[in-house]
């Protein structure tokens, strides 16, 4: 040290540069993490939207189909069974041969392979079911589903990565391009994707079954967990004496919120399916299991909302001679409702994206029917996505991406709803 002691300001100045640098570094770390997060989101969204949007469209071929009785093998058009079992593939195949002017067995086979005859047949079947009398023995225009290989090839024609990769023979390739140029083979929105249930063929598979399954799941979950969760929160906050037992209950509720969801699935399997014998793969049981999972979230957020109600409001009501129930119902509950609803919606959004517990109770099955109630076998959106991605067929992967988009849209809607509910119902005091 020098003989002259340093003044305070000199000491401060000496460290100032270091402090400023530390300050800048600290800010930079924050910006870097935000940037990394944004990059991840951006990557996720471009990737999923890029792939997923393809899943909403499909290529269709405009076909003139002759619906004559002989080929359809219908003798009595009032007989429903005959309409259902008619030979739709036959008429579709015939018009495909006509469209491509295919001659000879080999060429016919090549032409046939370009079109999903079965899927197109279902479209015709649907029309005839509605109005057989007017349609039979006439010619009708139908946008026929192409084979998923054709769709795959056409969607990737402009793709710089691997354009034009295909397994078609020259004749087929020529037909496809001729049809596209003639404006007969078009890319259109695939409404069947929104309206149909699952299918073994990717071009016919739709999301409706999974969406309805998820809807019934959330319905059961909400109807169970909201009233139970809110009642539990009210009891714990307003009525329960503060002692060891309530402390124990509180610790347990907090622990439940941290239990891995697959454990709840096992619990559901053991209790609801094995012990109570409820039907497997149904939204009812799925909803029970998801309720167990959602309850802690709802109870914790509801308790926080009740705690946030100012004590002065309670005092005012008590001072007027309101009973405990009146104070709770007239004042505490309305003021705590936005917080409770926010917690509930966030809990439900979690439940919507949950798949592990549903695996355990058999909701990962292949279910082509659209569920019409809580006791019908169903699958859920995340399960459907999982199954489609697992499928080796490229068409299904595209559908899975589209299904992810739908799931994301639902999640965003629910979160927006939570924010809206909070803003809308929030009252100032």
């Amino acid at each position, binding site marked *: 040290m020098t003989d002259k002691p340093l003044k305070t300001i000199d000491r401060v100045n000496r460290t100032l540069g270091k402090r400023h640098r530390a300050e800048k570094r600290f800010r930079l770390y924050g910006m870097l993490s935000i940037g990394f997060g944004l990059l991840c989101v951006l990557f996720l969204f471009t990737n999923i939207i890029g792939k997923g949007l393809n899943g909403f469209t499909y290529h269709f071929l405009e076909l003139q189909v002759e619906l004559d009785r002989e080929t359809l093998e219908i003798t009595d058009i009032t007989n429903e069974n005959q309409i259902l079992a008619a030979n739709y593939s036959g008429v579709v195949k015939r018009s495909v041969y006509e469209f491509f002017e295919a001659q000879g067995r080999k060429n016919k086979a090549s032409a046939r392979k370009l079109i999903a005859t079965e899927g197109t047949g279902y479209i015709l079947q649907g029309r005839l079911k509605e109005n057989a009398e007017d349609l039979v023995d006439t010619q009708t225009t139908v946008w026929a589903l192409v084979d998923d290989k054709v769709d795959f090839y056409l969607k990737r024609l402009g793709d710089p990565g691997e354009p034009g990769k295909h397994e078609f023979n020259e004749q087929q390739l020529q037909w496809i391009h001729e049809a596209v140029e003639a404006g007969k083979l078009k890319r259109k929105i695939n409404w069947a994707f929104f309206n149909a249930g699952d299918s073994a063929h990717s071009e016919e598979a739709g999301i409706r079954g999974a969406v309805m399954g998820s809807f019934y799941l959330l319905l059961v979950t909400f109807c169970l967990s909201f009233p139970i969760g809110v009642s539990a929160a009210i009891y714990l906050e307003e009525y329960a004496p503060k002692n060891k037992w309530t402390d124990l209950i509180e610790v347990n509720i907090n622990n439940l919120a941290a239990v891995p969801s697959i454990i709840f699935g096992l619990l559901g399997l053991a209790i609801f399916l094995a012990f109570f014998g409820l039907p497997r793969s149904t939204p009812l049981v799925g909803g029970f299991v998801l309720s167990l999972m959602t309850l802690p979230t709802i109870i914790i957020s509801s308790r926080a909302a009740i705690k946030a109600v100012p004590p002065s409001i309670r005092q*005012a009501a*008590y001072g007027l*001679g309101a009973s405990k129930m*009146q104070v709770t119902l007239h004042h505490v509950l309305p003021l705590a409702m936005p917080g409770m609803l926010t917690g509930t919606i966030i809990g439900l959004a979690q439940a919507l994206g949950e798949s592990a517990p549903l695996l355990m109770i058999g909701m990962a099955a292949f279910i082509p029917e659209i569920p019409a109630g809580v006791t019908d076998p169903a699958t859920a959106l995340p399960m459907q996505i999982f199954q489609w991605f697992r499928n080796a067929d490229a068409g299904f992967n595209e559908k899975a991406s589209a299904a992810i988009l739908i799931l994301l849209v639902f999640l965003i809607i629910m979160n927006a709803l939570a924010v809206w509910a909070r803003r809308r119902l929030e009252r100032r005091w």
Partner: protein
Amino acid sequence: MNTNVMTETAGDIVAENKPVTADTIAEQNADAYETVGNAFCDQAKMSMRNVNVFYDEKQAIYDVNLDIGTNEVVAMIGPSGCGKSTFLRCLNRMNDTIDICRVEGQFYLEDQDINDKKMDVVPLRARVGMVFQKPNPFPKSIYDNVAYGPRIHGLADRRSDLDEIVENSLQKAGLWAEVKDRLHQPGTGLSGGQQQRLCIARTIAVSPEVILMDEPCSALDPIATAKIEELIDELSQNYTIAIVTHSMQQAARVSHRTAYFHLGKLIEVNETEKVFTNPDHELTEAYITGRFG
């Protein structure tokens, strides 16, 4: 209650909060004391006898005896933490909402002991209303604020009856002229002074016999305070009022009798004029002359 423990606790409190100028007297009175002045009256609306209040093991009020006369305004003054608010809250059992609070003693509202555990607090609080320190209107409309009490007690059979009660109460609280055109706007949108008068209107809407006021003006500006004081004066014609206040001028202006509390003890009760001009007790004098507080 073990008297030993009581004395010890009392000693502790005195030691902890030892006032600089008046400590000796407080220590002398640690276990036994007598309220000086005139704590009783002939036409008592409420009579409190041998009141002791504890927060867990800590005693907050020692052996208080006090009468509040019919249509009388009794002011309770004293330094912070002297137990005056705690005492006031015993009068309509608001301390029931605090788990650790234990109240002993007899509280007679006319002939009924309201501290009896069998006594239902709902009718009690309809007879003994309360106005709080901070204006606390419900986050509802002005009309609903005033109508809430009559509604829960079923005081009005018809809508028109309820309208009348609301109008009367707001008029008595001196708020009618200011709010009659916006009865259905939120009560929280009023100014602080108006909110407090709304709370008073809400209290008198259930026609209580006694109104308790816990520092009703401490959050208000001088003009709003003056209005509330005027109102208290008017209300005293029909209601019995017990008011806790930190402002000695306010006590002097609005009350008939004044009770001085010190460290949980009721030191002196006298006619307000006497308390502020010629108090009997040294502690009272020390407090009102501003030597501590």
